[in-house]
């Protein structure tokens, strides 16, 4: 992978992180609303013909965003709730949260990209 591709992937990741955090500032919107801007980003990627490895970049961004947000909220508060359930249960919650965030972001980005690149192509991961 050359430097330019790496750079584009990284840039996409940062954009995604920003989207993931900013969409969640409003309490009123449904929790899954972030997939809409992520999907649009996927469309933009095709349009601009960026060489982005969509699912994995999306997954990684989602995983990082949700995991670190979970850890942040745990640490910012007294963190007594997860502590009650022990370190293992806490890790499962945090990792599970990362998995949910990652899967949804990755799939949304990939979907956004694939619906515009090749309408005939079958959706596969």
């Amino acid at each position: 992978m050359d430097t330019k591709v790496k750079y584009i992937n990284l840039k996409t990741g940062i954009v995604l992180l920003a989207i993931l955090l900013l969409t969640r500032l409003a309490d009123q919107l449904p929790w899954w609303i972030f997939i809409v801007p992520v999907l649009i980003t996927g469309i933009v990627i095709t349009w601009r013909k960026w060489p982005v490895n969509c699912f994995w970049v999306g997954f990684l961004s989602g995983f990082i965003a949700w995991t670190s947000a979970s850890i942040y909220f745990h640490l910012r508060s007294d963190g007594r709730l997860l502590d009650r359930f022990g370190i293992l249960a806490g890790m499962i919650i945090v990792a599970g949260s990362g998995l949910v965030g990652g899967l949804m972001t990755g799939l949304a980005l990939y979907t956004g990209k694939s619906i515009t690149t090749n309408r005939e192509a079958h959706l596969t991961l």
Partner: protein
Amino acid sequence: MIALIILTYALAMSFFGMPPLGKFLDPFIGVVQNEAADSSLKGISKYSVTAPVNVFYDNRGVPHIFAENTEDLYFAQGYVTASLRLWQMDFISYAAAGRLSEIVNEGLLDYDRTQRRIGMLESAKSALALMQQDTTTINAIRAYTKGVNAYISQLGYRQWPLEYKVLNYPPEPWTELKTVLVMKNMGNMLSGYEEDFNMTNLMLLMGEQQFNKYFPGIVPDISPIVKEKGGRPNPALAFEKKPTYLNSAFVSSGTLLNANTWNPQLGSNSWVLSGKKTKTGYPILCNDPHLNFSMPAIWLEMQLSAPGMNVYGVCVPGSPAVIIGFNEHIAWGITNGCDDVKDWYKLKITNDYRKYEMDGQWINLPYRIEVIKRRNRAPFYDTVYQTIQGPVVYSGSFTGSNGTHANHALRWSLHIPSNEVLTYIKLNRAQNYQDYRDAIKNYSCPVLNFSYADKAGNIAVNHQGAIAVKWPGQGRFVLDGTTREHLYTANIPSDSLPQEHNPADGILFSANQHPTDNNYPYYYNGYYAENRANRIRQLLEHTDSANVQSMMKMQLDNVSYFSAETLPVLLQYMQGRQLSVQGQRALDSMQHWKATYTLNDNMALLYNLWWKRIKDYTWDEFHSFSFQSRVPDDHILLAMLRHEPDNDYFDQQLSNVHEDAGDVVYAAFKDAIELRDSIAAKRGGPQWGNYNQVSMGHMLNISKLGVRKQPSAGAPDAIDAVSATWGPSWRMIVQLGERPQAWGIYPGGESGNPGSRYYDNFVTDWNKGSYYPLQFFISATEAGKNTTRKWILK
């Protein structure tokens, strides 16, 4: 695209009783948001208070609410209570109404049906209708309801209490009915016991003489709440004649079964000392109600202040006012009255449930349909029949845990519409003995013993509630539902209920013992416990110049009056018995045991096992009855050990030789030694605390959210009645004076949020026997100076 939709949908749904994973794990709104120690909502505005209300939080998280008028005060109480305990109070209202099927997928339909059929929801509705006629009451409940709803309206999923997220249902608006349901739930907890079926079987099996010997009413060694002056002995209180209707034709014996869910030691202590018994010359009031422990805790501590009232104490989440507490003038406490207020009537009903027999005529059997909504399923429609006695709890295919209660009507004082909320509202404002009398005079269910003290020096105790006028034996056994003669219609007048005011010796106490001696003119029965009362009397009689410290010591007293009485009798039987070296050593140590159930006591466990074995051996006959039965009270066995060593009950049914009391005591001791050793090996020593471990389970049985197995001092018979899952749920001591001084503690914490530091922060101190000084502020200014955290509701 399809994969994305499926994934999002899957994460938004709930499967296998799990919360929907997407929302639940979302760091921005999900479970990690419940880690926040305190509600993120503060500085509330736009609410319907007429003047700003100040809520000061002290260092233990106790709210001190200062309002400009009563309605704002109850609004703020509702708001603040919801912010601390919303899920708990809401859940209790569901449980009381028989609505748990709405929030839990399955398994609770029978529970809900039972709640509806015993009339919880129905009686809450009729009680509310009564309360709506009293302006003071309904205004308070209405304001409280508005306050709770003001809080709920601010909540998004992110702020939902954890339990809502786990069970995945939204908080519903609070209603006036929910407040009444919470009060009825308390009533059910305290007056829900009865043993009519068991006593019926025993009376028929044993006959009048034997029955009265083993299951007597009033016995000699008791310390009643009130000693009747100048009365004549009422023979019905000492000896229960077999009612003439009660014969084998009435009940076909042999199949009756009684589910035994009651804990007869679920009781409480309260005592008051007049000024002449205290150091300061002002009265002291002490109260520690014993209840089943739960997390979040049963009680919520609070100060409520508005013009004309400034009160501090504990509240029940879901109801306005303070339930146990004090103000600048008076202090009051409560213990369970323990009277039998729940009776069963055997009916004759036609096969099609259209008619039932009454005084030789067949009259229509009315019914109502209870709609029980179910989560993810069609509603369940239940038919509940209603006779003039009360609801037919078990009928047709719904026979409950046992078939014997089928087609019996339940008559229960909880069904009579009454206004308990007003009693507490008035007590909160009471300034003197007249106000106190006025507050409690209409109080009806459950029967409670109110203790009272004021700064003018008065002390009082009242056994207060709706207690029916009954003929001797009425309601102790199953009644005949086919005749009006078995209905009771009047209550004992308030003036004639057991009560005492400023006695000469300066002490009054209640601990679930008999309310009177046998000079009381009315017949009554109940499920009383005498040992704690006897111990309290013993200690108070020798108390002079009492102060707060000596009262704390007394509330934490771990001596069992009964064990102390029994031990010498048992030891006498052990003289000259052959024992192993180890057994002899244990017996020698036992000689010096002072019946103390302290944390590190080495003998208490052995003694307890010993006594339990003696009971098992003695009452083995009771296990061979065709019906399930409780055994006679411990003091009956003690009397037998003292006076009737050859009583036939001591003889083992399955052995070939004839045993007497000595043989039983000896065999039990040897067994107990073995048992003690095996328990000690498992639990790391024979110390009492290793065995007496107290737990406070979360209301949803999520073990990590509860407090588990803390070694603890205390015993059911001791004043400090700590046991595995129940005990002193609020210890309070109030020293009246120019300014009241008070101490208190409860096992739990102010917050219902398991993520909060205030969730269980009192538990360790409570278990150690510590008390917190209760910060009673005279004014908002004073409260402001002594607290650091503040909310303003405007």
